[in-house]
C-alpha cells in the first residue's frame, strides 16, 4: 500500500472488471484486486445461483445486476456506492445493452457520482508502460485480438473467435463422454477443475505427430485419477486428454481462424508501418492465457506459419522475431490492474461520465454511436 495518499482522493475509486466467468473487484491504486469472484448471482426470489449474463429480458438483466452489485458492495468491498467514482473495464466490442444497463443500474439505483469506461486492451498495456503492442485477451467466452499502436487501438484490425474457457470445457466433456464417463458427473465446476489442474498445452511436434496418427506417436503424458467426491466417483483423465484439449485453439483449418492465424491476420490488417513493431510486442492477458506451455507453443506455431504457409510467407518479409511481454502480477487480472492504474490518476476527473450528464440523456457515449462522435456536436 502506498505510504502517502493524495489528499484529493480520500475515497479511492472502485475498479470493476466484470467478466463472463469471473469478476475482479477492488480499489484504485492497489496492486491487486481485493477479490476475484465468480460472476454469479443468487436470485433473491428463487434462491438458485445462476450466471449473471444469462438473462431473458433487459429488465431481468437489470434486476440481476442490482442483486450482483449489491453483494459486491456490501459483502466484499464493504463500501457504500453512493457518491463514489467508478472505473469499469469493458470490452469495446461487447453488447451495448450490457453497457447501458450497467450504467443505468449504477447511476439510477446506486446513485454513484461518476463512471469511467475503459477498454480492456488499451488499459492492459498501461501496466507495461509501453505504447505499442498486440494485445490478446483469452477469456471465458471468447478470445479477442486487438493491436494498439502509440496508444491508439486499431479497431479495424480487431479479431475475435469464440474459443475460450467455455470451448475448452466443452471439449473436455466431449472427450470424457467418449471414454465412457457419465455426463451427469461433469458439471461446470468439475470441468473447470480438470482444466486448471491437469491440462496443459503441448509442444508443436507432439501435436503434429498425434494429428498424423500412425505408429510413431510419442507416449502420452500419464493419466490422472480425478476424484469427484460429490457423487463419489473416480474419473480417469487420460494423458492424451490432458495434452489434446487445448488443440482446439491451434486446429488448422481453411478459414485460418485458430489462434496463431488470428494473430497474423490481425497484424496483416494493419498498415505496413506498424507491423514490425507489433510483431515484436505480443501481450497475452486474461485467465485463459495462464495455462502452462501456451507461450512456447504460440511462438513455435507463429514461426512455423511464417515459414511454411505461403499466404503469410509472401506477405511478411524480413527477419521477424516474435517477442512476448511478461505481465506484472497474474494475467487474469492484468486488465483490472490497468484500470486501477487509470483510476489512480487524474483522468478519473476529466474523462468519466458524470451523473448529471448521464441523467440528462440516459445514454452512455459509445464509439459506435454517431450521435456521440459528430465533430460539431457539443
Amino acid at each position, binding site marked *: 500500500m502506498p505510504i502517502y495518499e493524495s489528499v484529493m482522493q480520500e475515497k479511492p475509486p472502485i475498479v470493476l472488471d466484470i467478466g463472463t466467468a469471473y469478476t475482479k473487484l477492488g480499489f484504485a491504486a492497489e496492486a491487486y484486486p481485493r477479490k476475484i469472484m465468480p460472476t454469479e448471482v443468487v436470485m433473491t426470489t428463487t434462491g438458485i445461483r445462476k450466471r449473471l449474463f444469462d438473462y431473458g429480458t433487459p429488465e431481468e438483466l437489470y434486476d440481476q445486476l442490482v442483486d450482483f452489485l449489491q453483494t459486491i458492495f456490501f459483502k466484499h468491498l464493504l463500501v457504500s456506492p453512493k457518491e463514489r467514482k467508478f472505473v469499469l473495464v469493458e470490452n469495446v466490442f461487447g453488447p451495448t445493452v450490457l453497457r447501458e444497463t450497467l450504467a443505468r443500474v449504477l447511476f439510477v439505483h446506486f446513485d454513484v457520482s461518476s463512471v469511467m469506461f475503459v477498454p480492456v486492451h488499451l488499459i492492459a498495456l498501461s501496466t507495461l508502460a509501453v505504447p505499442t503492442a498486440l494485445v490478446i485477451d483469452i477469456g471465458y467466452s471468447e478470445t479477442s485480438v486487438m493491436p494498439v499502436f502509440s496508444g491508439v487501438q486499431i479497431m479495424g484490425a480487431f479479431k475475435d473467435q469464440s474459443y475460450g474457457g467455455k470451448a475448452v470445457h466443452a471439449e473436455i466433456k466431449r472427450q470424457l463422454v467418449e471414454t465412457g464417463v457419465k455426463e451427469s458427473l461433469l458439471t461446470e465446476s468439475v470441468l473447470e477443475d480438470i482444466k486448471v489442474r491437469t491440462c496443459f498445452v503441448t509442444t508443436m511436434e507432439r501435436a503434429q505427430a498425434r494429428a498424423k496418427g500412425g505408429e510413431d506417436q510419442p507416449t502420452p503424458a500419464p493419466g490422472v*485419477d480425478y*476424484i469427484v*467426491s*460429490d457423487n*463419489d*466417483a*473416480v474419473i480417469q483423465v487420460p494423458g492424451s486428454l490432458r495434452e489434446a484439449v487445448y488443440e482446439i485453439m491451434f486446429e488448422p483449418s481453411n478459414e485460418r481462424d485458430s489462434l496463431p492465424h488470428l494473430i497474423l491476420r490481425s497484424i496483416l490488417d494493419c498498415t505496413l508501418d506498424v507491423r514490425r513493431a507489433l510483431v515484436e510486442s505480443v501481450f497475452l492477458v486474461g485467465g485463459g492465457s495462464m495455462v502452462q506451455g501456451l507461450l512456447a507453443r504460440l511462438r513455435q506455431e507463429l514461426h512455423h506459419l511464417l515459414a511454411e504457409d505461403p499466404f503469410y510467407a509472401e506477405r511478411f518479409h524480413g527477419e521477424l522475431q516474435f517477442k512476448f511481454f511478461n505481465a506484472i502480477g497474474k494475467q487474469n487480472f492484468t486488465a483490472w490492474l490497468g484500470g486501477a492504474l487509470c483510476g489512480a490518476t487524474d483522468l478519473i476527473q476529466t474523462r468519466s461520465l458524470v451523473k448529471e450528464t448521464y441523467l440528462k440523456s440516459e445514454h452512455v457515449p459509445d464509439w459506435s454511436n454517431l450521435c456521440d462522435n459528430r465533430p460539431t456536436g457539443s
Partner: protein
Amino acid sequence: MPSENRIKILPKAVVCEESNLRGDITFSSGCVVHPSATVIADAGPIIIGENCIIEEYATIAHRLEPGASWDVNNILSIGNHNVFEVGCQVEASRIGDKNVFESKCFVGRGVTVSNGCAVGAGIKIHTSQLLPQNTIVYGEQGLQREAIDKQGSQTLQIDFLRKVLPNYHHLRKPNYDPKKARSVV
C-alpha cells in the same frame, strides 16, 4: 459366521465391558476401546494394532462380501496409533498407521488407507481407491490434500484414558496371548 467370540486382549489394553465385539478380534497392547464401540469381524479376523483409540459408537467392520463366508486367512489388519472418533464407520480393507477417522465419517470397503491419513468429519468415501500417505480428506466435497506436517501424536490422550476409564467402567480382563501376535500389515 463364527459361532463363538474369540477375543484376545493383550496386556495394557483397556477394553470396556460394554463394547460390542463379535468374531475373532485381537487387541494389541495399549489399545483403548470405549464403551458402545462396535467391532464386527464377519469375514475374517481383525487385528488391531498398538495404541489405537476406538471411541464411542465407532464401528469397525470386516464385512462379508455377498456370497463369501468366513475365512480365517482374510485378516483385516489395522496399524498402530490410529484414532477412530465418535460415530465413525470404517469398513476399509486395510488400514495403516497413525490415521485419524473423524466423527461420523464412513469409509467403504474398497478403500485402502495407508499411513498418516486423516478422514474429515462426516465425509463418506464409497469408491474403491487407495488413499496415499499423509492424505487429508476434508471439506464438503471430500477434497483431498497432502499434509506436509505430521499429525500430532495422541500419547497424552491415551495415557489419560488409560488412567480414567477403569474408574468408571468395567473392563474386560486381558488374556495373555503367549504367541504375542503383532499386527501384520
